[in-house]
Each structure stands twice: as structure tokens, then as C-alpha cells.
């Protein structure tokens, strides 16, 4: 077997020996470089093709439906292109669905409720998750891994099952009410389930790992001597936090907040199961338009509008990120 050293020597010899061998080795080198370059584009192309097929294509289908007309047929919407008998293509674009979203206050209200609920949930996740992530970073190596595992542990059970478990906990005859009555704090059950409170509990519970993990990843890179440097220069702990820790963990805060905010806004299961009829979020409206009303164009318009509402904060984040990369 050749040691790396011997290999090197062989290489050097080949370049020094006759020109024929030299040219030969150069050609193979070029060949491998080409393969190498190709590989890179192939590796990059795969996820792009994936996204194109499975994200962009459905998006255009949904968009197409949103500018169609609702019909009682199968499929329940008019087609975009029509061949007239003279062989001319007619394109029918109908913005009724979008106008309907603006005209009916229900939709705007639901959007605002959704955004409010997900914003407040994101904030709660941040306020709870930040100290948790920081505590995990500060704990000794062995406990750190266990704590991190505990953050991810809930993912090992089905999401739906966990939400049902919360229903059991929050119900009128549920564990929490039973406990409070047994302790003598309350006489009769208080309403926990089917309220905004229950939705907040569900969303915060479900999405807090998505806040903790990016924060953890960000804080792991944090140089703790910077805290000592700040203290050394006269900064009290509070001041150190606001001038050093917070600005340096901002990327983690933004990433975590987006990871919570975006899926929480479109959340369907939690408001449906824990909020019942009392909390209407956009995911539920969308579901109803599709399944109860069979109004596919309006449902698609709701989805498109939701997407736009969520893409904007994403773009802002991207913009901030790229600016940071430059500076």
C-alpha cells in the first residue's frame, strides 16, 4: 500500500519525468476536474428541481384555481384556457375570489386573528425559549445533551396525539380542573378548553422547540469571554445582556421567531381541536371553504393571500441576513 507521502513522491516524479507522461497526467487531472465541477452542479440542482416540482408547480395550480370561477362540476372550477370552435384560445381570469376576500369582513378578521395569535405565541415562545436555550448552553456537557434531547423528545410522539392529550388535560372534567378542585382553589370547573387560552397553550407547547433549537445553535457560537470583557469594561449583567448577548443572538431570535410564526399562522389542527368554535384562524377557514363550501377558487385565494402574508416577513429576514453577510 502506498503511504500518502509515497503518493506525493510519485506525483512529483510523474511531473518531472518525460513530457508524454506529464501530458497524460494533466489530461486525467482535467478530466477529474470536469467531473468534480459537474458533481457540484448536480448536487445543487437536485434540491432545486425538487422545489420546482413539489413547491412551485402546486403553487401555480392553486394560483390557477384562485383566478377561476366556482362551478358545480368536477373539478368544481372553470378552466383557465378554453378552445373556442374557431380554434382560438380564450383565457378567463376572474378575480372574484380575491375581491370576495376583501369584501367579506370574515376573512380580514380571521387573518388578523391568526396573525395576532401567532405573533403573541411567537413572543411567548421567545420569552420562554430564550432562557431555556441559554440555560442549556450554560449547563455542563453531560446534562446539556440530556436537556437538548428533552427538547426534541416530544417529536417522537404524533403531533395529533399530543394535542388530544392537551384536550384531556384542559377539559372541564380534565386533569387540571380536577386537580384545582381537589386542592380547593376552585369550586366548579373553569373553562380552559375551547378558548383562546387553550390555543395559545397548544401553539406555544407545539412550536417552542422550533424556537429553542435555532437559539441554541446560535448561542453555541457565542464567545463567552465577550461577557467577561463587557463586565471588565464596567457593564453590569443587565447591560451586558442588552449590549452584547442580545445583539449577537439576534439571528437566532429571528430564525426561531420565523420558524414559529409562519407555521403557527396557518395552523389548523390546534385551533380546531383546542379552540373549537370559539377561535377561528385562517387555516380553519381554508379547510371549511374546501370541504364544507366546496368553493375551491375562494379557498385557493385564501391560501394565496396567506402565502403572500407570510412571504413578506421571510423576505425581510432574507434581506437582513444578506446584509449581515456583506458587512
Amino acid at each position: 500500500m502506498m503511504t500518502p507521502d509515497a503518493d506525493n513522491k510519485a506525483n512529483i516524479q510523474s511531473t518531472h519525468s518525460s513530457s508524454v507522461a506529464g501530458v497524460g497526467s494533466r489530461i486525467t487531472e482535467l478530466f477529474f476536474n470536469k467531473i468534480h465541477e459537474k458533481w457540484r452542479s448536480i448536487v445543487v440542482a437536485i434540491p432545486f428541481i425538487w422545489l420546482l416540482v413539489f413547491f412551485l408547480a402546486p403553487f401555480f395550480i392553486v394560483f390557477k384555481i384562485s383566478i377561476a370561477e366556482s362551478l358545480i362540476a368536477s373539478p368544481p372550477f372553470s378552466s383557465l384556457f378554453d378552445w373556442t370552435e374557431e380554434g382560438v384560445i380564450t383565457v378567463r381570469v376572474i378575480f372574484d375570489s380575491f375581491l370576495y376576500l376583501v369584501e367579506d369582513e370574515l376573512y380580514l378578521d380571521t387573518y388578523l386573528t391568526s396573525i395576532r395569535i401567532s405573533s403573541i405565541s411567537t413572543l411567548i415562545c421567545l420569552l420562554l425559549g430564550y432562557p431555556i436555550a441559554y440555560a442549556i448552553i450554560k449547563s455542563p456537557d453531560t446534562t446539556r445533551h440530556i436537556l437538548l434531547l428533552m427538547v426534541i423528545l416530544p417529536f417522537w410522539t404524533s403531533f395529533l396525539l399530543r394535542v388530544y392529550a392537551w384536550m384531556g388535560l384542559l377539559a372541564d372534567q380534565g386533569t387540571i380542573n380536577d386537580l384545582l378542585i381537589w386542592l380547593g382553589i376552585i369550586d366548579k370547573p373553569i373553562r380552559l378548553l375551547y378558548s383562546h387560552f387553550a390555543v395559545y397553550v397548544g401553539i406555544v407547547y407545539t412550536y417552542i422547540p422550533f424556537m429553542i433549537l435555532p437559539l441554541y445553535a446560535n448561542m453555541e457560537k457565542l464567545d463567552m469571554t465577550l461577557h467577561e470583557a463587557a463586565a471588565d469594561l464596567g457593564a453590569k449583567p443587565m447591560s451586558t445582556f442588552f449590549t452584547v448577548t442580545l445583539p449577537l443572538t439576534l439571528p437566532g431570535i429571528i430564525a426561531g421567531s420565523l420558524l414559529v410564526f409562519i407555521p403557527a399562522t396557518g395552523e389548523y389542527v390546534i385551533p380546531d381541536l383546542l379552540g373549537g368554535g370559539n377561535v377561528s384562524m385562517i387555516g380553519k377557514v381554508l379547510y371549511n371553504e374546501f370541504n364544507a363550501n366546496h368553493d375551491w377558487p375562494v379557498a385557493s385565494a385564501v391560501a394565496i393571500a396567506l402565502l403572500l402574508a407570510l412571504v413578506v416577513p421571510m423576505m425581510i429576514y432574507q434581506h437582513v441576513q444578506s446584509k449581515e453577510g456583506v458587512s
Partner: protein
Amino acid sequence: MTIFGFGWEIMTNETNYQDRQWLDPDAEPFIQLRGVTKQFGSFTAVKGVDLDIYKGELFSLLGGSGCGKTTLLRMLAGFETPTSGTIYIDGMAMNDVPPYERPVNMMFQSYALFPHMTVESNVAYGLKRDGVKKSEIAERVDAMLSMVELSDFAKRKPHQLSGGQRQRVALARALVKRPKVLLLDEPLVALDKRLREQTQFELMNIQDKLGVTFIVVTHDQEEAMTLSTRIAVMDQGQFMQIGTPTEIYEYPETKLIANFIGSVNMFEGRVVSNDDDHMLVDSVETACRFELGAVAKAEKGAKLWVAVRPEKISMSTTAPQSVGTNQIKGTVHDIGYLGNMSIYRIQLDQNGSSEGGSLVEVTVPNQVRPKDGKHAIDWDDEVYLSWHPESSVALFR
């Protein structure tokens, strides 16, 4: 503690202690450590040390990794609390004073510059925390940046600077608060050799100009020698010796110190006679008699080591005219040519043969060029080594 001739001379002849306050019995130490111990679990990093550092000193804590020097510095900064003992700075006990209220600033080994702030904001950070007026902050930051020659880089972020520039930002940031004490943790370790030498002298100039007390932690003996007014050599959480660079180098107290700072030749022997002005020592190993200047009391027959630095030994190919003390004969075993000087390893003759004798190191300045690849004294030449009685040191442990 044994004070050798050199030290005594100063004590008796000098009345002006300005640069050597530690010799002035009336001088008030600026920093005092009293029985300071630090334990991490079962490991004792610093073992009950006492130390006095005076105002305006450039004091070095020198030692290998894990010797406790960094722990000591961190206790001075306030990042670690002593397990027992007290640290006084400017007469005030520091044990319960948090880092942000201490009159000290630190320059971190990694510089610990705030990556999200410009050079200017980094330097201004400490002043802002103290609530200094905006106009004054700007003025002092400007002055400090021009002192470290970084005025043109004020708007840059740390990652846009070179290692040497970052080091200067760290220095400016620590000095702008006008601390009474500046702590420097391996200040030059991240710089390349040329820059390190230049920065050493810059540091000394700044220290001289501002009169701040510097405490430097280093593992680099050369750095400690050039920078310091005094050096404390640390090992296993204790001071082995505290003294000026000259004292530490010329009059080491133990074999460990002699070996740690520079290189040294050591010969084991027993005291033959010890008069007021000189001591005679017989060495079995070299079959040679050594003469030393007047030193500590040593009884006849006591075991000791005679230590001689390589540059104190003169080497000749011709035999000395008379047989005397401090003379040994050997053969050139090895030559290390360094350009400005050469290091010779001489194998001593043992019982009349040159086989298996111990090696002695001798450094010789290259005043004459080697001719045709041949040194003035070359491989396998027979040489005679000798040195002045005042050039060697007797070590008892």
C-alpha cells in the same frame, strides 16, 4: 530568601528607589495578595500565594500551562473568587467587588472584541457604561485610537482587521478607561515573531507614558525578560522565584528555575571548603574542582549543583597555561549554527576517555565567518572549557 551580591549592591548604593520600589521598605504596595488560594473541585490551581506589586510596575507572571498564572490574573480581574485569602488593590479588599466595579481592565488573550461593533464603539464601550459625557467619549476614543495608530480604522468591524490591529484595538479599549491596573493575558501570543517584537516595545512605551501598572501573564520567557520590571516564575500554583529579569536569569534559586529560564549546565558536587570570599566544590562526575564566588552558607560536604550558563563558558583548542579551577576538557560533539552565534555541545572526558561523558552546552558568538564550511572550532576538536568563578551559581535544590 537568599539575596545575592548583585542585589545587595543596589540596596546599599541606591537611595533613589523610583524604578525599584520593591526594594524600598517604606513603599506601599499597590496590589497585595495575601494567602490567596483557588480550588476547582479537588484541584488546587493557586496555593496560598503572597505577592506585592508596586505602582507603575510591569510585572510578569511566567510559567507553563496549568501553573495557575491565568487563574491568578482572573482573580485579579474578578472573574474568579479566591477560595481563601484576600486580594487588595490600592488598599481595598477586592473579594466582594464584582468585575464591573474594579479599577482594573483586562486585555484578553483572544482579544474578545465585540464582533457586532465598530472599532470606535468597541473602544467607547467602557466609557459609555460609566456614563461619561458624549463629547468626552469621542475625544478620549480619538486620542486613544491615534495613540495605537488606528484612527483610519475607526469605522471598521473587528473581522476586517489584521491580528496586530485587533490586538491594538483590545489594548486601546482596555486603556481608554484609564485603569489603575491593566491585566494582559498572553498579549502577544497570537502575533507572528516580527510583530511580537515590535509590539513588545510598543507596550513598554505605552506603559512608560501612562504609568499604569501592567500585570502580564505569559508562558514565553523571552517576552517576560524583555518586558518586565519583575517576573514571578510560577509552578503548580506557587511562586518559585520573584525577581528582576537579571536576578532570575543570573541568580536562579533552584535547579527548576535555572532550567526554566534559558539553558544551563549543571554539575553535581560536594563542598570542599567555604570561606568568606570563595567556595570550592569537587565534582566526581567531571573529576574537576569548581570555584565559586562567596555565596550562602554551605557546610563542608554538603551536596550541591554548580550551574553555569552556556554563554559564560569560554572555549579554546589550546590547553590553559596552568592547571586551575573551573577547567574541563572535552570533545566537540555537535554544532548548532544559528548565524549570529553557534551552540556547541561538548562531550566531557570521563576517566581519561571521551566515551559516554556528559554533554556541556557552550554558546559562542560568531565573530569570524566559517571558512570553506569549517568552523574555527570544528567537529571532534579537543577543547578546553573554563569560566570565571563569579559566573557560576550554587544551587542546593
